[in-house]
């Protein structure tokens, strides 16, 4: 599909989220720019051909045909769930507890209506310059998404699930989703976005998350992707952190055709800290990419990245982690580590741990290693009577555990551990 097709497709959804001026600016950008392709440094290793060549149909007229989403939810997490099917909000299926009015949970459309001031203050404020045609499309024709506002001094205990379901039984569908999460001063919240598919049809999801952390707030944000093998998903997440804030982002990419996460974290206040971890397990002909940018804009910031991949079949993966330290971000402490385990002969793993430093009083390090299962360790286990397959699974588990252990929501952690065991048994 050409960019014009995409405009026609997405403009069909009755979107009234974006202001006219934002929409015009985005459309202007689309006019003068091409869809990302291989000549773009940032898209060189992401093969978008299967995504772009496919013809999609709009999802907005589709009828919802499910009545229960319990199977799709994360076991054990039954409170606070916002459900979206093909980008449209399902109020009947969602479960919302606006705890003592200290937190607002709902759809973006509702949020805009109820809290116009907050909405206008934050919506579309995280993207300094339009990045790609896809982000521009999302801004121009944002359809709906989750809106979470945590008010001052409120520490939310119950994790919030945003369940994003693709349903494309007969026709390949494309839709957009736009989430907006705001943490006011001294607040705290746990969020899990869960992407799943209901059928095995082809779908394309162009999603964006905008997250703002005001002073002293704490965010735990999880991205869980387990979709059918025909799903193409571009996920663009931007976090803007004020002083003394702390964010943790955990990404688990389990299944999908093309999963690309573009995560940008701006540490715009002093003493802002972030930790981002990811595990990606592509197999067959899947492509899972993580493009991370952490921008240290003020002093005393701290960031950590840990990404691990187990790549099997004929899969491809890209990890690009860029740490940018501004001139006045002295005393920055940044660390970055990427490890890839290659299981078969036909995989491709690209690793780009990058540092760009303009301040002198900093401590930055990065590391990357790519290899296969250690044969000696395997032999050691076998010599103690553990079968080859069993030994391998043991080692894969150990490899992934470092990342999975970073997850702080116990129910979610259990859920992933179980899935992981099933995946390799």
């Amino acid at each position: 599909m050409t960019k014009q097709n995409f405009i026609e497709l997405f403009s069909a959804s009755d979107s009234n989220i974006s202001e006219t001026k934002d929409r015009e600016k985005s459309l202007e950008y689309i006019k003068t720019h091409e869809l990302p392709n291989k000549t773009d440094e940032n898209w060189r290793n992401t093969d978008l051909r299967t995504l772009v060549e496919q013809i999609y149909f709009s999802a907005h007229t589709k009828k919802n045909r499910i009545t229960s989403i319990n199977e799709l939810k994360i076991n054990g997490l039954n409170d606070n769930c916002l459900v979206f099917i093909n980008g449209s909000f399902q109020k009947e299926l969602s479960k919302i507890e606006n705890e003592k009015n200290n937190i607002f949970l709902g759809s973006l459309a509702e949020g805009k209506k109820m809290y116009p001031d907050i909405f206008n203050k934050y919506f579309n404020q995280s993207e300094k310059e339009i990045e790609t045609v896809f982000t521009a499309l999302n801004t121009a024709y944002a359809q709906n998404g989750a809106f979470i506002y945590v008010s001052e001094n409120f520490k939310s205990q119950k994790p919030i699930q945003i369940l994003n379901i693709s349903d494309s039984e007969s026709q390949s569908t494309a839709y957009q989703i736009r989430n907006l999460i705001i943490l006011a001063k001294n607040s705290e919240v746990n969020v899990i976005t869960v992407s799943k598919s209901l059928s095995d049809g082809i779908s394309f999801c162009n999603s964006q998350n905008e997250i703002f952390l005001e002073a002293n707030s704490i965010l735990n944000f999880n991205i869980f992707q387990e979709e059918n093998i025909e799903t193409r998903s571009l996920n663009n997440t931007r976090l803007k952190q004020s002083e003394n804030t702390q964010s943790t982002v955990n990404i688990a990419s389990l299944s999908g055709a093309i999963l690309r996460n573009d995560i940008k974290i701006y540490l715009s206040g002093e003493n802002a800290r972030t930790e981002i971890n990811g595990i990606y397990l592509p197999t067959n002909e899947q492509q899972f990419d993580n493009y991370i940018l952490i921008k240290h804009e003020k002093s005393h910031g701290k960031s950590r990245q840990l990404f691990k991949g187990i790549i099997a079949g004929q899969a491809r993966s890209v990890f690009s982690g860029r740490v940018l330290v501004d001139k006045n971000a002295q005393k920055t402490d940044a660390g970055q580590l990427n490890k890839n385990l290659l299981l078969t002969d036909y995989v491709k793993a690209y690793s780009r741990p990058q540092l760009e430093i303009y301040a002198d009083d900093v401590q930055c390090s990065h590391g990357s290693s790519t290899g296969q299962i250690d044969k000696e360790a395997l032999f050691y286990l076998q010599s103690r009577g553990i079968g080859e397959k069993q030994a391998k699974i043991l080692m894969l588990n150990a490899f992934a555990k470092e990342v999975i252990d970073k997850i702080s929501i116990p129910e979610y952690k259990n859920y992933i551990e179980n899935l992981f065991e099933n995946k390799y048994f």
Partner: protein
Amino acid sequence: MSQEDKIISDLKNKEYEAGFFSDYESDVFPVGLNEDIISQISAKKNEPEFMLQFRLKAFRYWKTMTEPQWANLHYEKPDFQNISYYAGPKNKPKYNSLDEVDPELLKTFEKLGIPLKEQALLTGVSNVAVDAVIDSVSVHTSFKEVLNEKGIIFCSMSEAIQEHPELIQKYLASVVPYNDNFYSALNCAVFTDGSFAYIPKGVRCPMELSTYFRINQANTGQFERTLIVADEESYVSYLEGCTAPMRDENQLHAAVVEIVALKGSEVKYSTVQNWYPGDKKGKGGVYNFVTKRGICKGDSSKISWTQVETGSAITWKYPSTILLGDHSIAEFYSVAVTNHHQQADTGSKMTHIGRNTKSTIISKGISLGNSQNTYRGLVKINKNAQNARNYSQCDSLLIGDQCGSHTFPYIDVENPGAVVEHEATTSKISEDQIFYCNQRGISAENAVSLIVNGFAKEVLNKLPMEFAMEAQKLLSLTLEGSVG
């Protein structure tokens, strides 16, 4: 005053010491670039037809290309029509003995501390055969007879094109093809001279081969081309050094270096790059856009690059190795120091194709003043490169709060049997380290010099002795005045 103090105080009073301009008569082409100029260069060099065709092909391709923009460099793009593409000493370019050489030229090399007289070489500690290139022309090659006895060919590129066209036709542009990149295409079209070395089968070259490049004329670009071919089971160590006078305008240097290592051979290539870096305000200086590439063509061959980069206003340079032969080895050791307003974007590329290949990258970047220092490297393990192994380490040291240091490694692995590791750190010299030295009576400036030398030692140790001395001297020169 002890010997050591004297050295340090000498160093302090020095500026860019190679910045003089020699006034000998020279022959300069008018500025501009077109097919006519290229034909003239070719005619001037008495080249066979195949060379002219090669140049024109490259030029036609170059015209369709645009300058690369991806590097982390900011500078005014050179105007390629405002450069003279040929300049050389006017007096007849070929000498039978050193006595015939223009005395002004000899003085130039004496000033640079490069003895061209073999006697001087023999009595001294050094044992180096030198090929000296001024502007566009190779002036002199020493120790020819000794090398001839062993069957080693070491001469200027123009001579090689005349005398060994079969080797040139076989190997020239076999590693860096004419359409490789913008600057190499330009180089193919207009290169004027350079060095050629061929080491025959089973010969171990008894001395270091060395080329010395110098840009003298204003408004000229230097486009030299170096080709080193090591035949089976041979060994050679090759050194390269460069300087330019201080000028206010930017000069362009776009060289291409190609190395072919056949079965079982080993090539060691060292560079000390000291082009004029511009003044303290960033005015002037050389644009150094260089393509260097080697190929380990045969099994068990080895190429080792060592570079010390202290000069140039802008450096754009990625010595790379293609590991084609099984069991081949490539190494890259680099120290890049940038000061004032210098910018360097440099690193290495290792392409593993053969089985059981091994590569090592050690890169040390030191940035001072307002400079920007970037490491950019690619390690690519191809599908069939079973058991490939790479280890990369790139450390950066920041001195002063206005400088920048960046690391952009690219790691592409397509074979599961490969083991690829990359490590990097960036930090400044800690106050504790300086304090420790101060405590023991070492001044802050000397302490910095000491720490930097220690930081770079891993790489400096890989240089041949004569060069290691020069490199250390250069390092302290560049660092001077950085503290306080």
